[in-house]
């Protein structure tokens, strides 16, 4: 039997029917076929190529108010029966409910403008790598590129059936810049929905060369500053990691309920403080899975809910949580289509898609820098972290420049922005007109699920008291 033959959508219908027959009050099933290829280059040497495919069948069963998520790969009717027959439920009643949803029928396929013909991705990657190799002061170059095409078919006991086909590319590239006595490391990442054009849109070699040059300049000409800065202008790369870590994650309703407490953590948001002020009136933060070509793109989530833009913070006020059908039942609201799994073998969790700070068309980056007058401009970061409830964060600058009399000045070696979430967002004085999304892979759950996301939006001027 071939992988194509094993993409038997009849198994999905059968799985749902068997679950209902066995006493489930709700069931859904997803069949997923993934084809992938990937390459890694170390200092110009092709370490190895990888190619492969997988077929996974997942069944989610709500029975006696417990949610069971079962999966097998390379499914057959016999393996499906074995999996379902193997489930022995709990003695007591559970506490899970699934909020009712509408019935959806959909079949969508994301086209590849440039088809992934044999070897095309490797040729493009090698070409970019060769270009980066022209930079003489790199101590290490290491990177990998991947392509995958995910074909999914979903049915649930409410009559929905959704089929999708989404191709994606992602690239990771690390350089170590050598300035004699010391080094700096930079890791580039990019991901997109689509075919080869997604990788080509990454601008890999130009961006890495530009960063290498900036980092060398920082090491050779950078100054150290030993005081907290009152005025900080952040570029979309910093805005992106900040909206992701300090707004997006705490807005995940499963965290708010404590369901991720032993894994991905908690949230400063609780059932009791929803609607609180998080930022200044200049701050509106959204998460939108429907942005074409984005890394976090989808039109229906993994529970069969139609995707839509979510406004997490509106004019500085907490506005909406990311919900799945289980948390929606607890909050007495509706799912906003936030359930995703990294692959069909795992349980769908509440995930961000593409999270961003809404731009303000009235202000250019130059306006922000002029308004700051004296301070720093943080263009990119290296390490970052945040605490369990997402209340305290740190973003270590990589490319940082002094702002002196409203103009950009010398590079800075050692700036770190370390503050509380509320201080960060309430200090936003102006938002710029830029709109840039950067790529990030986001980890959550146990087993760990790695999800492609975009994050970013506008530049911003933060003025701390």
């Amino acid at each position, binding site marked *: 039997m071939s992988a194509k033959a094993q993409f038997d959508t009849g198994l999905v219908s059968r799985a749902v029917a068997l679950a209902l027959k066995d006493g489930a009050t709700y069931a859904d099933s997803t069949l997923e076929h993934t084809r992938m290829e990937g390459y890694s280059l170390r200092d110009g040497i092709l370490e*190895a190529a990888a190619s492969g495919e997988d077929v996974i069948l997942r069944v989610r069963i709500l029975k006696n108010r417990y949610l069971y998520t079962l999966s097998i*790969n390379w499914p057959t009717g016999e393996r499906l029966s074995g999996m379902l027959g193997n489930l022995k439920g709990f003695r007591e009643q559970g506490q899970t409910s699934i909020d009712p949803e509408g019935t959806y029928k959909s079949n969508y396929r994301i086209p590849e403008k440039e088809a992934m013909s044999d070897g095309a991705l490797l040729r493009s990657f090698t070409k970019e790598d060769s270009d980066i190799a022209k930079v003489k002061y790199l101590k290490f170059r290491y990177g990998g590129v991947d392509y995958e095409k995910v074909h999914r078919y979903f049915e649930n006991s409410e009559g929905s059936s959704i089929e999708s086909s989404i191709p994606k590319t992602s690239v990771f590239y690390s350089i170590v810049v050598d300035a004699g006595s010391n080094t700096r490391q930079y890791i580039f990442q990019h991901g997109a929905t689509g075919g080869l054009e997604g990788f080509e849109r990454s601008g890999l070699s130009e961006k890495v060369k530009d960063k290498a040059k900036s980092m060398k300049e920082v090491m050779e000409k950078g100054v150290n500053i030993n005081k907290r800065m009152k005025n900080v202008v952040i570029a979309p790369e910093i805005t992106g990691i900040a909206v992701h870590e300090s707004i997006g994650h705490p807005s995940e309703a499963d965290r708010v309920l404590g369901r991720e407490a032993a894994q991905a953590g908690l949230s400063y948001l609780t059932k009791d403080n929803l609607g609180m002020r998080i930022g200044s009136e200049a701050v509106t933060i959204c998460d939108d899975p429907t942005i074409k070509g984005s890394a976090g793109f989808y039109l229906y989530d993994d529970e069969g809910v139609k995707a839509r833009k979510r406004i997490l913070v509106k004019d500085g006020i907490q506005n909406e949580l990311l919900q799945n059908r289980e948390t929606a039942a607890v909050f007495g609201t509706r799912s906003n289509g936030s359930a995703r799994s990294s692959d069909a073998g795992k349980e769908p969790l509440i995930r961000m898609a593409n999270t961003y700070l809404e731009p303000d068309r009235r202000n250019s980056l130059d306006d922000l820098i002029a308004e700051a007058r004296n301070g720093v401009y943080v263009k990119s970061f290296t390490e970052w972290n945040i605490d369990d409830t997402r209340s305290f964060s740190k973003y270590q600058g990589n490319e940082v420049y002094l702002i002196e009399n409203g103009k950009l000045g010398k590079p800075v070696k050692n700036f770190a922005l370390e503050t509380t979430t509320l201080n960060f967002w309430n200090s936003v004085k102006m938002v710029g007109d830029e709109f840039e999304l950067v790529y990030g892979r986001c980890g959550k759950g146990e087993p760990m699920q790695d999800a492609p996301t975009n994050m970013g939006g506008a530049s911003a001027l933060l003025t701390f008291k």
Partner: protein
Amino acid sequence: MAMGKRGGKGAEEAIDDAIEFVFGELEGKAEDVVVTSSSGTSTYVKVVDSRVDSVVDIDDSDIGVFIAKGKRLLFTNLGLVGREEMRKKLDRALKTVELLQVNRDYHGIAEGPYRYKSALNYDPSVENGDYDAEDIVSRVVSTALDGGASYVHGMLTLYRGRRRLMTSGNVDATEKDTSVSFSARVFMDSETSVQSNGASRTLDGIDYEGLGDYAVRTAKMARTSGMIAEGNYDVIYMPIAAGVLVDRIGSAVSMGSVEAGFSFLMDKLGKNVTDTDISVYDDASAPDGLSSYAFDQEGVPSQKTTVIKDGTLKTYLHNTSTARKYGTKTTGNAGLVSPDSTGTLITHKNHMKSVEELVKEVKRGVLVTNVWYTRFSNYVSGEFSTVPRDAAFYVENGEIRYRISMGAKGSASAGIRINDSLPRMLKEMDATGGDTVQVYNWDSQDYNFTPALLVRDVKLTSATII
């Protein structure tokens, strides 16, 4: 509740037939061939608010293939498909590998056969589903609640699997694995939490009541909370916190990390890299290690390797290919392209029997029970920062004074951040204390072995002051 054995003997025979067929099809068609069959089931029982919340059960089987032809390397997988489909995939793979660029750094795989003396622990009860998940959860949760905890979140994870390896280097080896782990995050109230994790290859290898008891005892080390100023402090990392950093030390010893620019130990072979009382081992043969294996990905028997002895870096971790490149022997850490660290163990000659004795060594410091978001600004320099996740305690004149809280209401976060570098940390590690235990952490999901660590003069910062 239990998830029973899937497939049974018939499934094992089918996958054995498949791997033998694939190996037969590839034999003689490339210089090096490695075929691996794997089948395993993972069960995750999630605990939320002291109750079982949900179950995830993942059954994953596959046939993986590695082909090296003229130093051109290709990995592919075949899945559980029919023979004709397998033949087609293999034909395609053999054509594809010809089109790849040469990896001049590749120097082949190990030549067997080998004799395996592995004595890894194994539990038929896990394989057969002969356990009661609710009872296991109850043993942890009840102990914590009885000790005064308000609620417990966590995860019980069970795994059973089988792996067979056939290589053109005369290896044909099979091993079966079972494992159990329990991760419990115990909250005394909304502002005090402690993480308690246990891991073993057998059900009886974990003291479930002990997990709940440890969390409660640790949380009660201080009854009050307070703030600390930014500055330099001695830091005691309890084993769960230490494990994250020990894991990063292990990763840096891999030749793969060294060659790719992800190691602070580059160019340090034969040199002093730590305090001279410290030794570090990579142990893939630890009988109860969840990262342990009988043989690596090319069939070399697992071993315990001394990587740092009395402060001196003795070896990097190698597979056969990197060992040949650098004129040394494999350490049994394949990774066919890049060697992997496994079960890193750290020891210190100044080891104290208990954490309490370690605390007595500290004039002004912090005891950290757990960390997460450990991020490196530069893997070559080893500079990192990490955030205490659960309870952290201020220590003064050899005594724990209070739990650190920088003022986020309703948050168990200490609100402090550790800023250090691995080279500095290893030079300034003065002592270890308490039991050496197998640790894992949500931030670092590999299994390593460490006692509590005492590191002097660590820079702590806080976000509450700007």
